[in-house]
């Protein structure tokens, strides 16, 4: 979790453990408002990191992940309303159903680049419409109210922290594993990867399921957090875009990036929604353009640049062009 390059894993782990421990102790100091903001950030961190497995590691940019977010939320909500199962089990069920649902996107895996993205827009919007009109399940436009979770908002803070920490650790582990190398190989050249034995279809299905399940899980916790959900928010195109935005702001394809991006996104959204509700989407658009033009690796790229300057090393040439292919330098630095 540090920006440092080839540091021994124990230092990264120690830093990570320290941050998690500090956050676990933080509620002692935080007021309720700030604590809720943290909880929301944890859920968005988990969602953004999971989106990044597909969008950053495999390089398939999905604009349809709201579908899994919404399904996770509504399945968990329905379970909690209909049965006395404890909330964590309902969340888990929501995540699992979302993971299986994500497999439905299998046919889109033949497509790459913009074609894949366009197909996921279609799938996401189709899901939104189906679930908006499926009133018996989602309550339609009037939505669903959820029972309170045992332990209230305080408990949700810790569940959120646990989820975010687990997904961050998983992102780091995947990045360093044989699986992660194969995903990066698929991103670079899917045919050349196949020619050295990488089964791109199977691995992409696997990532779809994992990514969908975690996004679904964060959607389920989000449902409990808001205690009221409705399809247009959960399945909305805004929601899908938000995962892309968080990763692009922070640094797509890196581990640290989506974490930073989610934090900035949550803070910015809270501020802008309160102060300039009409402007906030437009401001995201401008931010996105600036990042893609000047720092394709987002905040992570910026941090790397600053660190390099401090060490007075000549900047290394980025040997990949474009925002979606440029995790190379971050890979060298081990973000």
């Amino acid at each position, binding site marked *: 979790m540090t920006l440092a390059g080839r540091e021994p894993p124990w230092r990264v782990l120690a830093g990570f453990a320290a941050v998690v421990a500090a956050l676990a102790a933080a509620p002692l100091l935080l007021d309720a408002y700030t604590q809720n903001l943290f909880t929301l950030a944890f859920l968005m961190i988990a969602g953004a990191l999971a989106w990044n497995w597909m969008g950053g590691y495999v390089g398939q940019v999905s604009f349809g992940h709201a579908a899994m977010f919404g399904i996770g939320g509504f399945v968990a909500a329905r379970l909690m309303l209909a049965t006395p199962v404890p909330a964590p089990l309902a969340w888990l069920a929501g995540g699992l159903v979302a993971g299986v649902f994500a497999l439905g996107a299998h046919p889109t895996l033949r497509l790459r680049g913009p074609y894949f993205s366009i197909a996921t827009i279609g799938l996401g919007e189709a899901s939104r419409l189906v679930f908006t009109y499926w009133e018996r399940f989602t309550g339609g436009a009037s939505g669903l109210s959820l029972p309170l979770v045992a332990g209230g908002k305080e408990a949700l803070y810790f569940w959120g922290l646990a989820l975010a920490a687990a997904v961050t650790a998983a992102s780091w582990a995947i990045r360093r594993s044989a699986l992660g190398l194969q995903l990066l*190989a698929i*991103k670079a050249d899917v045919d050349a990867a196949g020619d050295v*034995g990488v089964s791109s279809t199977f691995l992409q299905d696997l990532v779809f399921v994992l990514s969908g399940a975690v996004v679904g899980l964060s959607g389920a916790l989000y449902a409990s957090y808001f205690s009221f959900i409705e399809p247009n928010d959960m399945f909305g195109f805004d929601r899908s875009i938000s995962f892309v935005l968080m990763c692009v702001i922070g640094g797509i394809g890196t581990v640290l990036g989506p974490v930073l991006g989610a934090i900035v996104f949550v803070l910015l959204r809270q501020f802008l929604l309160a102060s300039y509700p009409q402007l906030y989407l437009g401001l995201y658009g401008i931010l996105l353009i600036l990042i893609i033009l000047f720092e394709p690796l987002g905040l992570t790229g910026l941090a790397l640049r600053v660190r390099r300057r401090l060490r007075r090393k000549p900047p290394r040439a980025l040997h990949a062009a474009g925002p979606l292919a440029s995790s190379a330098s971050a890979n060298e630095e081990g973000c």
Partner: protein
Amino acid sequence: MALLEVRGVSKRFGGLRAVDAVGLELRQGEILGVIGPNGAGKTTLFALIAGSLPPTSGEVLLDGARVTGLAAHRVVRAGIVRTHQIARPFPNLTVLENVVVGAIHGARRGGGTPRERAAEVLAFTGLADRAGDGPATLTLAGRRRLELARALATAPRVLLLDEAIAGTNPAEALALAALIRRIRDERRVSIVMIEHVMPAVMSLSDRVCVLDHGRKIAEGTPQEVVRAPQVVEAYLGKDGEAVT
């Protein structure tokens, strides 16, 4: 019995017969050269064997078992791997990591962990000191070595080399030719090589097969093939004189 057997394989793109009923046999421990003018169908033939493209007709057998119609990654796991004419390293991975990707599947057959296997292959191909660098920092010959290393890491039985030497300077060409020979002799990998650098083909190959317009027009020892009138005609035209 032949290790690799290609039986009457054809590929049609619309009206064009890119590969037309080509048959080949590769014996264990052999180096088979494939030559022919540009556009003769050599690379397409490799794509058909390696599963990158499905053949229109015909079949490919490895050790008597059909591999035709398998996806490329399954053909690799069966033991046939190809390299690309223009090296295609993964630019977002280091040299070592590039080879590890191949070694993940090679380790199942060849033993060891992927990283151990990759390190061993890098040492064999002379890239050990570049392990941590990005592929973009390698020379053309270096990228060719990386392409070879990545393919070797999959622990193949048959290696399909698509112009592994062409385009490098004479010293590098000799070194690459020596490496190819060592792959056959020390690693016991049988090789089919497409090559335009004639001295290399002639000295490395046990047999050479010549393609022209998608058809096999000659096959034999290097000496036999260069004298065959139909080969001379394919390269130089009908009124050309034999080159010796």
